[in-house]
């Protein structure tokens, strides 16, 4: 299975499971290129996330699919057909706005009915379809309320119901959870996922929150500066990032900068360290060794020497208490490199670490990655 669906297609509609296909999309605003030559395949019944820092072009991409932005180059195919000539109100695609954009003067029921009325649905069919979606989104008892009489979470569900009732081919969601507080956001992440399974519609969600994308999405396209840096499943993205940017953006990662050698990466003051290479780096390149905190083993210097492929000596400079686990900040080498390790607060000996302790830290070759250095200077 290719990590990027777009590469495995040759002709339009070749893949039956593809709903929307983006072909070499480019969008420029004056001198700024917001979206640069992006190709992606969005599949049937998939929860897809466009993830990236603000200004990476993810919202622009979403608005182009919805029809609110024009394309400078490229094509958008829906079920194999170019949708460029279709105005946004003629596309079987709906967008859930970041602000929810509920009609303030209409009741919940009127908000939800609006889209169907525009299609010419009337009478008992209108009523039954609206009733059904209100039930799915648990809004039945609020049907006669106005948006300003609802909580943030309820408003979000109205926005969802209003878009879903039209049974679009694809539902686009622009930062759907950004307006909610943290507790509710975590709850709604799972709720959105459940809803997507229930209605069987392709969801494309735009978010800047990597955790949100990891929890909800089947596939994630991580974007920067108008380009897709990597498109893969959450696990693939976390375990096999293809660049320093991706590794840094997803989760927490330790980086040790150095130069690629035959055996591994030569890091100043620490010698040769080993990790997996994905083949993108050649001997002599600037690169970094990346290792996740949970892949590091830490032991007191007084204990038996670790038997890992890489073992470094260091000093504990900080201990961060997170509740369920503990973050250990370990200074290694003379160049001031710091490795962060995480261990469960319940782990044996976890409570014995003190700031200033000399410790040894180790990892296996297969648990570290050698990545090309694409960080911005």
């Amino acid at each position, binding site marked *: 299975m290719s990590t990027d669906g777009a590469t495995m297609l040759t002709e339009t509609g070749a893949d039956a499971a593809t709903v929307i296909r983006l072909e070499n999309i480019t969008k420029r605003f004056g001198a700024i290129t917001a979206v640069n030559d992006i190709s992606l395949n969005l599949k049937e019944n998939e929860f897809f996330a466009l993830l990236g820092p603000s200004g990476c072009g993810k919202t622009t991409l979403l608005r182009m699919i919805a029809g609110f932005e024009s394309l400078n180059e490229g094509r958008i195919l829906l079920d194999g057909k170019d949708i460029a000539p279709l105005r946004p109100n*003629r596309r079987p695609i709906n967008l859930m706005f970041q602000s929810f954009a509920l*009609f*303030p*003067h209409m009741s919940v029921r009127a908000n939800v009915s609006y889209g169907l009325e525009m299609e010419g649905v009337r009478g008992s069919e209108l009523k039954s379809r609206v009733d059904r979606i209100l039930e799915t989104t648990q809004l039945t008892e609020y049907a006669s309320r106005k948006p*300003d009489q609802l909580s943030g979470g309820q408003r979000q569900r109205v926005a969802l119901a*209003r878009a879903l009732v039209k049974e679009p081919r694809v539902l686009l969601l622009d930062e759907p959870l950004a307006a909610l507080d943290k507790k509710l956001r975590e709850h709604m992440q799972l709720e959105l996922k459940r809803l997507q399974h229930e209605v069987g519609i392709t969801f494309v969600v735009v978010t800047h929150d990597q955790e949100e994308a990891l929890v909800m999405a089947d596939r994630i396209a991580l974007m920067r500066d108008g380009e897709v840096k990597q498109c893969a499943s959450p696990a693939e993205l976390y375990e096999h990032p293809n660049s320093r940017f991706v590794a840094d953006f997803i989760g927490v990662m330790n980086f040790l900068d150095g130069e690629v050698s035959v055996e591994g990466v030569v890091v100043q003051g620490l010698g040769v360290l080993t990790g997996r290479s994905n083949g993108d780096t050649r001997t002599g390149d600037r690169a970094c060794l990346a290792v996740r905190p949970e892949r590091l083993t830490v032991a007191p210097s007084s204990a038996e020497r670790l038997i890992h492929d890489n073992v470094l000596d260091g000093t504990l400079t900080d201990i961060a208490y997170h509740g369920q686990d503990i973050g250990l900040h370990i200074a290694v080498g003379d160049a001031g490199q710091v490795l962060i390790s995480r261990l469960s607060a319940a782990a044996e000996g976890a409570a014995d670490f003190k700031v200033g302790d000399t410790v040894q830290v180790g990892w296996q070759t297969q648990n570290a990655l050698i990545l090309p250095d694409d960080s911005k200077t």
Partner: protein
Amino acid sequence: MSARIPRRRDPAKLFLGGHLWLVYTFLYVPILVLMALSFNDLGLPTAWGGVSLKWYGELAQNDAVLRAALNTVIVAVVSTILATLLGTLLAFGVERRQRRNNTMEALLFAPMIIPDIVLAIALLSFFTALNFTLGLHSIIMSHVVFNIAFVCAVVRTRLRNFDFSIVEASIDLGAGEVTTFRRVTLPAIFPGVLAGGLLAFTLSVDEFIIAYFTAGAGQGSTTLPMQIYSMIRFGVTPEINAMATIVMLVSFTLVFISQRIDRKAISQ
């Protein structure tokens, strides 16, 4: 340390309170006197002859006054409709502009600030230069000029809290431009438009200077304030008191309603 602060009347507060009452007295006592006199059976400012609606009756018999009242209603209604339409459109245009221009913003407010007399002379010169026949229509046009600015200002306060994404949401849900305006945009900003329109109507009803300058010769285009002015030259008659009372009640009611609507709109 818990220091007990002795309760004492603050002299500054006392002074300001007294000042406030003086201002209200100065503003409203003359109006109350006028209203009372309009019900005075004797019609004299010096002696009270009991409550009577006699002067209101006389007013109803006065053809010139009725004619002027009708003119005023025509001018106010037509100029309000035009100013509300144009002012609302203007507000949309200004609020949706990407780049703000301070000079342009200031020029929008100018008709509200320019002294009426200056605007009146300017309009008269303008109409004369064009060889435009003066009459009710020229008063209407002149009232539209300054009322656009007021309507625009009121609607803009409403638009500032307006989430333009609901327009896109409506289109996204399948509506066309016209349906979107009729069913989403207009209802959402309607309180602001209504408040602006009511304000324009009130301003038009009691506007004197500009109407006086742009009405042209002849009785045909005399408005109520002009009629009152011409009657007053022979002294304040009880009829005028009655008419002033009616005009004032209408104005007050409209201002009150427009403020209520506006406040409700903003608090939403």
